[in-house]
């Protein structure tokens, strides 16, 4: 089949946009995440840069029509570098009144709202919590509303497929996608291919969905004649040449771990227990058995981390992953890995808390837990990924540090990063420098806590090696023999050594770079993790006005880069936007005695650019 987009492109003069924010919102069962995923692909294939934000409820399929059951997918795409999923929505697709209710506040004035009027029954309107039908009162006056009976039109479109009403209505999302494809002149073919593959065994469903997609698209073409549906062109972004794909944080992280293990010459034993939003890593790794990955779904988080530590003891790379509450359960065992100085990777996909909190919402509130959250003096290494694609690099780096220093490393990501997707210039695995691990085999002079003079890492001797039989455990070990020791001075020495080993890693990581701006000035905006996008854009906005504001973004949370203290000291103000009540701020203040100030957001939603911008302006007095 020839490209379906090409035709439209020729016929239509389109309004040009530098970037656009589209949000699909509907019931949990409406397939909004799928729709968003397909649209993302299409934007990527069109050469746009983009960022996405999937946002869905904790319930699997909450009752239809309720506000708490609304599932949304937001994408920001454009012809320039896109750093966030967008502050305000340009085009909202609202599949029902509840979706409209929940998302309306985020649509920019004058924005386009596409509603399925077929779903605006009195009952649904009431259920969504509207006093009266918003399509009939003044609620939507400030917007450009496109009312379409998507339900009816979809039914009509798939009539031939012979599907029952329920299944037929399930194609609504594809109808809408077709329409939005039309609006942005996007190629339907990859979606058609995908549907054919997905429903290979249920060709009726494939046909129906494709019919809906095409019908939505056709509706656009027709409506456009009448000027009802606006159309736009969004040019390709100027991006580095190479082979690209869209990648979610979960994928990039899993692949990074696999590549890292490969570079270390180790096999992965991944012990985990399902939890939102960490599970995707387990799911992805479970499909990579051909790469020497063993996955183990344990009975709980404790067994998961213990199995990983056991694996490291046996010479595999032990990895575990979870989210806040599950990481809390692993604390005791992580202490054992610290005490026995075994490599261990702990991935924490942070979510909103405390306790169960808002499992599907994002937050950065486990930094305290990562840096300080264990009994006793138990230092480990902490890194944070800033974006989906950055997960790949940080994952490789945690493998390097864990194995080189024989230490647990915690990698912080969050619900936003885990689920969001962005285009990724696919690296060549061969370009990643190897850092092969050497197991101890030499019998002469061996004891298990014998250390490398420079790294202070102990030697790694694995079961199966003749002559190196030894016992390790959580009781303090004699510095000179590795046997258990209750000696007071020895405990001091070992405690100091464990600390020195971790502190010393500061010399093996890059100096902190400044992302944007000078190395001194009025304000340093210091971020970590997924706040990267909004900080970057906010800083560039105020810099465009000539302010001496710089953006510093940490990958290494512990130990901190060795130049960070002096870097921060050269700014008048240090501002730290975090999706928590001020955790990195604590660390920076304690370490460097800089009067760092927090910009805190704890709503389960990512920062908006404007929020950070206004925090900066407040300090600038601007």
């Amino acid at each position, binding site marked *: 089949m020839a490209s379906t987009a090409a035709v439209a492109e020729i016929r239509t003069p389109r309004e040009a946009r530098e970037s656009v924010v589209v949000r699909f919102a509907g019931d949990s069962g409406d397939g909004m995440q799928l729709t968003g995923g397909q649209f993302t*692909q299409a934007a*990527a*294939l069109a*050469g746009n840069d983009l960022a996405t934000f999937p946002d869905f409820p904790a319930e699997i399929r909450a009752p239809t029509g309720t506000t708490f059951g609304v599932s949304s997918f937001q994408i920001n795409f454009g012809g320039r570098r896109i750093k966030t999923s967008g502050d305000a929505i340009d085009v909202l697709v609202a599949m029902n009144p509840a979706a409209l209710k929940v998302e309306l506040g985020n649509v920019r004035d004058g924005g386009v709202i596409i509603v399925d009027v077929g779903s605006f029954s009195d009952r649904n309107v009431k259920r969504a919590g509207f006093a009266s039908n918003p399509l009939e009162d003044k609620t939507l006056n400030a917007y450009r509303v496109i009312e379409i009976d998507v339900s009816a039109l979809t039914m009509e479109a798939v009539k031939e497929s012979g599907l029952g009403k329920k299944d037929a209505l399930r194609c609504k999302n594809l109808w809408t996608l077709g329409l939005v494809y039309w609006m942005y002149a996007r190629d339907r073919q*990859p979606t058609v291919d995908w549907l054919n593959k997905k429903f290979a065994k249920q060709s009726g469903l494939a046909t129906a969905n494709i019919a809906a997609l095409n019908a939505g698209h056709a509706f656009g073409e027709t409506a456009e004649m009448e000027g009802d549906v606006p159309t736009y062109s969004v040019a*390709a972004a100027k991006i*580095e040449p*190479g*082979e*690209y*794909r*869209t990648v979610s944080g979960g994928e990039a992280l899993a*692949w990074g771990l*696999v*590549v890292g293990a*490969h570079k270390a010459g180790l096999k992965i*034993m991944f*012990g985990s227990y399902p939890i939102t939003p960490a599970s995707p890593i387990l799911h992805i790794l479970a499909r*990579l*058995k*051909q*790469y020497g990955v*063993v996955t*183990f779904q*344990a*009975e*709980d988080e*404790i*067994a998961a981390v*213990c*199995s990983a*530590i*056991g*694996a490291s*003891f*046996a*010479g*595999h790379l032990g990895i575990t992953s979870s989210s806040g509450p599950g990481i809390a359960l692993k604390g*005791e*065992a992580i*202490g*054992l890995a610290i005490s*026995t100085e075994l490599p261990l990777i702990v991935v924490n996909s942070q979510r909103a808390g405390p306790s169960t909190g808002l499992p599907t919402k994002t937050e950065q509130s486990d930094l305290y837990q990562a840096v300080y959250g264990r009994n006793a003096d138990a230092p480990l290494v902490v890194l944070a990924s800033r974006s989906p694609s950055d997960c790949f690099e940080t994952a490789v780096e945690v493998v390097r540090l864990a194995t080189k220093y024989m230490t647990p490393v915690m990698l912080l990501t969050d619900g936003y990063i885990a689920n969001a997707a962005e285009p990724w210039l*696919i690296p060549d*695995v061969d370009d990643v420098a190897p850092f092969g691990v050497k197991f101890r085999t030499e*019998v002469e002079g061996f004891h298990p806590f014998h250390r490398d003079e420079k790294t202070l890492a102990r030697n790694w001797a694995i*079961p*199966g*090696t*003749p*002559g*190196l*039989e*030894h*016992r*390790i*455990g*959580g009781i303090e070990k004699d510095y000179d023999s590795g*046997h*258990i020791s209750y000696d007071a001075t020895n405990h001091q020495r070992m405690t100091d050594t464990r600390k020195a080993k971790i502190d010393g890693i500061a010399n093996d990581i890059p100096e902190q770079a400044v992302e944007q701006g000078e190395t001194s000035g009025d304000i340093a905006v210091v971020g970590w993790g997924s706040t990267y996008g909004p900080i970057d854009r906010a800083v560039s906005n105020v810099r465009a006005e000539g302010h001496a504001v710089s953006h510093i973004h940490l990958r290494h949370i512990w130990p901190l880069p060795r130049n960070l203290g002096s870097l921060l000291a050269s700014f008048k103000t240090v501002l730290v936007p975090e999706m928590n009540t001020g955790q990195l701020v604590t660390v920076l203040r304690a370490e460097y005695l800089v009067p760092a100030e927090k910009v805190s957001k704890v709503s389960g939603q990512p920062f908006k650019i404007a929020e950070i911008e206004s925090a900066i302006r407040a300090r600038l007095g601007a």
Partner: protein
Amino acid sequence: MNVVPQQLTAKDFATDQEVRWCPGCGDYAILKALQRTMPEIGATPEKTVFVSGIGCAARFPYYMETYGFHTIHGRAPAFATGIKLSNPELDVWVVGGDGDMLSIGGNHLMHTLRRNVDLQILIFNNEIYGLTKGQYSPTSRVGTRSPSTPQGSVEAPVSAALFALGSGARFVARSVDTDLKHLPIMFKRAHEHRGASLLEIFQNCIVYNDGVFDSFKAPSVASERQVRVEHGKPMIFGAEKNRGLRMRAGVFEIEAVTVGEDGVTVDDILVHDETNRVMANLLASMDSDQLPVALGVLYCNPAPTYEASVLDQAADVRAKSPNADLNKLLRSGYTWTV
């Protein structure tokens, strides 16, 4: 450290570390029995790993000249599972006390048994928390006075064997610390069994629970109060080998009878079938005065091991995608070139 000599002896399995149990502790006898058994089962120090949790019993690995991991309280089976999944070639033993394995660690034990990870799991059951100075444990009998139960405990204890059977264990055996003849046989059987083997050893804590098993362990009563079960053999006991177990007609029960009395003949005596889970259940629950305590292999009914199934599956996957190339992985699905 140990360079493997041709013919190993018990000594080759002993470390140079001072043994730190209380003088007279039952753990010494178990250690000795196992060190003796290791050469007989062809164990090699470098391929053997002892994994333990925390407790007096859990100090065990320090005294075995093999690889050893003294982990944290209750989690040894989980560590051992990770070890086996990484290197199934290793011969892995798990050692823990009743508190370690059945109080805090009960869940890991259950799942390890049901998964059938190829491990020898030894529970040193002294019905008390030794290392923390004598609190009652989940195996302590009702009425046990201890620092945390000054008026006596009120909870029904758990039976390690019944729990293991209920959890889906495929090998359940029992022995006593001081029986240097029986214990090695049990070690061998547990070792032979592919899959998770649970061996409960009644162990005397001389400091906090001295003599708690005397009612069936004391030499004066042992032969009347113990029945050593063996597959395919009638379950006979007693000093004069004239006592036996019989199925009570029409009900799912076992009774003790005397051959030669009330017309009971040897043919009436139940023959032990270690593949019968219900029989194992009945044997494991004999804790009244009327019935002897059953020792030996109560149940043995092999099934595929967990790590073998995992490996098989991985091999299948590898066979189906022979050219696993990382660059290909990163490029799977839609990609485009700018």
